[in-house]
């Protein structure tokens, strides 16, 4: 049934095996090499097991009842689902260890070979994922949703995504939605967009110039339901009549050289057709070579209830949010090209600098050398999943890398995932599909967390503090926090001064016995106060003092304490001046 598919797999495997055997293992760390080889062997033997034992089932006599054939088909599909899954596990270790290998000191020639292994294994993984996706749908292992959704906004979202895919301006993207298309319908929005994106994505691939047009209208309307017809027409290379007959077959591409020219695994249309048929729809293709192709599909839908569309951000908030986001650097780990483009586009519009399209190694490199404010992480990446990437980031030795806030996003967020997130140290989550408002809020909330860190880290790197800085205060913010009530401000400043005096006394006592733990605690308590009166210079000094306590550097603690004793009276003077000024006002 799937000779060409098997061929594809085998071709990949042969290539993979050849590159591995050409690799000179002698020059490597013995352990690494052993692990790499073992995982490859496991992978091969598990593959062989699957291939040789189930073959016996296929040796069943030719005459089979129709029902038996159907059963056999289902079991074969489940078998494919199973085997794809089994292949993925060892393949993941191959990819993982190859990545590790690439980090070691290798000769140029060895690097080239490792790259070849990486390329081949990634291609294989992509292929397996598509096979898995296909078999899941066709064996009925995929759950279809039934929810109310606004079909118009879905169509516009899809078109927006496609626009970002088109780099050539000679291609025009058109959409026409008939008036008779109901606003809200009931169905599976994510599957519908998958189908549309697949078809439109195909067009984008095969059209060099001209247009791509999506048309939608209600072909039949009844009291409670309707049949919608969607058509995607393009001015692409077209498909010959005899190829149209087989284009939906598993793993066929229109021409033998389609893959080398246009890429893809050949499963896209097959998956699309399976989805449409599972949703009780039908699909057909009409095409003329060199003129273009029109793909039409129809699907029944029940009318739906209105859903709150919440994609627009309150203007005021948006302006404020943008101010915070402008100039921030955000890293995006997302394997789905469409989603990646969408999010990169959005972040760029908000003025963020975006790093996307990354491997783990590249990402770590950027984290170590640039100031990344936040990482957006898709949890369900097929390659190295988001949990693994996050774990690698959190366990990195540099604090610059391992403290960067991570926001995970995922389409299904089960309880299990959420516990994993906490355990790894993922800071926050975004549930797909998210609104722009929600995205912005989550970014702002978590970027703020980082500012605290950056502060802390930069202070540790800069031990010398200008004496003047340590005497500066600013009461305006605190007064605002008091809603302008000057009495409240006076009360707070009184408390602040008491805290400072208490601190001076405490440190003096504990310095006699070198009790740095108590001093650290006192310093810690005082930080909030200096933050409130915006005495940033003095606050930094206190933070450094606290850090020196923790690092057991009594001599440095004494030095910093002396600076504090020297500068605090000046600070208090400034504080009194500022307070008097406000009191007179």
């Amino acid at each position: 049934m799937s000779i060409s598919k098997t061929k594809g797999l085998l071709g990949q495997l042969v290539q993979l095996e050849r590159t591995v055997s050409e690799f000179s293992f002698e020059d490597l760390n013995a352990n690494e090499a052993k692990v790499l080889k073992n995982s490859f062997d496991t992978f091969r033997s598990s593959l062989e097991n699957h291939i040789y034992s189930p073959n016996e089932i296929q040796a069943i006599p030719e005459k089979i009842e129709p029902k038996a054939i159907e059963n056999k088909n289902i079991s074969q599909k489940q078998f494919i689902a199973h085997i794809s899954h089994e292949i993925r596990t060892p393949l993941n270790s191959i990819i993982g260890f190859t990545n590790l290998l690439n980090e070691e000191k290798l000769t140029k020639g060895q690097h080239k070979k490792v790259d070849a292994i990486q390329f081949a294994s990634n291609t294989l993984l992509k292929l397996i994922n598509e096979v898995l996706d296909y078999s899941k749908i066709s064996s009925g292992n995929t759950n279809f949703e039934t929810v109310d959704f606004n079909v118009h906004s879905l169509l516009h979202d899809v078109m927006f995504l496609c626009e970002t895919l088109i780099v050539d301006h000679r291609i025009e993207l058109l959409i026409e939605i008939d008036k008779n298309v109901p606003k809200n319908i009931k169905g599976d929005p994510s599957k519908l967009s998958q189908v549309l994106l697949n078809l439109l994505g195909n067009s984008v691939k095969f059209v060099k110039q001209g247009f791509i047009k999506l048309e939608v209208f209600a072909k039949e309307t009844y009291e409670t339901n309707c049949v919608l017809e969607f058509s995607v027409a393009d001015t692409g290379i077209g498909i010959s009549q005899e190829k149209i007959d087989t284009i939906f077959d598993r793993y066929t591409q229109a021409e033998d050289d389609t893959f080398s020219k246009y890429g893809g695994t050949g499963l896209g249309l097959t998956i699309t057709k399976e989805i449409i048929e599972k949703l009780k729809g039908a699909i057909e293709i009409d095409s003329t070579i060199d003129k273009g192709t029109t793909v039409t599909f129809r699907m029944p839908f029940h009318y739906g209830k209105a859903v709150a569309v919440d994609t627009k951000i309150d203007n005021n908030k948006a302006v404020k949010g943008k101010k915070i986001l402008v100039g921030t650097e955000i890293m995006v780990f997302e394997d789905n090209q469409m989603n990646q483009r969408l999010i990169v586009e959005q972040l760029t519009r908000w003025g963020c600098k975006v790093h996307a399209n990354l491997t783990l190694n590249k990402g770590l490199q950027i984290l170590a050398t640039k100031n990344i404010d936040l990482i957006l992480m898709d949890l369900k990446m097929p390659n190295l999943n988001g949990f693994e990437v996050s774990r690698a980031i959190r366990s990195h030795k540099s604090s610059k890398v391992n403290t960067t806030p991570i926001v995970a996003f995922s389409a299904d967020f089960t309880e299990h995932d959420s516990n994993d997130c906490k355990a790894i140290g993922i800071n926050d989550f975004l549930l797909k599909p998210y609104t722009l408002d929600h995205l912005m809020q989550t970014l702002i909330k978590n970027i703020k967390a980082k500012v605290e860190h950056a502060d802390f880290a930069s202070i540790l790197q800069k031990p010398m503090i200008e004496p003047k800085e340590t005497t500066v205060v600013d009461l305006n913010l605190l007064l605002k926090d008091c809603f302008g009530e000057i009495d409240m401000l006076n009360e707070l400043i009184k408390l602040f001064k008491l805290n400072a005096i208490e601190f001076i006394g405490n440190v003096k006592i504990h310095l006699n016995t070198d009790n740095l733990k108590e001093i650290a605690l006192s310093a810690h308590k005082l930080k909030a106060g200096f933050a409130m009166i915006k005495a940033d210079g003095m606050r930094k000094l206190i933070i450094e003092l606290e850090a020196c306590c923790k690092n057991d550097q009594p001599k440095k603690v004494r030095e910093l304490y002396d600076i504090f004793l020297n500068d605090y009276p000046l600070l208090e003077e400034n504080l009194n001046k500022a307070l008097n000024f406000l009191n007179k006002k």
Partner: protein
Amino acid sequence: MSKRVLLADDDQLLASLLNFRLEKGGYAVHHSANGKEVKEYLKNNIPDIIVSDIMMPYFSGIELIDYVRNELKSKTPIIIISSAGNEQNVLTAFELGANDFITKPVSPTELLVRIGREISK
């Protein structure tokens, strides 16, 4: 009737400001400066929300969450106040059932928004 907030923080300065702002925001505030007082108070009162510093004498914010969730079996929302560099504590707090956290230096406005959000949930 106004919602009752239990504010547990040993920093008199920060607590005063928060107390002031919470009362302005229409909340009835009970302030406790240490864990012992907090425990005493919770024996007879269940507030609508608890805001607690992680670092407190006698009875830390972490212990407080554990006490509220596992001994009192109360689902009262808890927001914790933590310092930068205390991520591990925050994770532990979430694992024990804290609903939200806010990092020092605390912006009173932000805290009020977070409180409002938890209470309206």
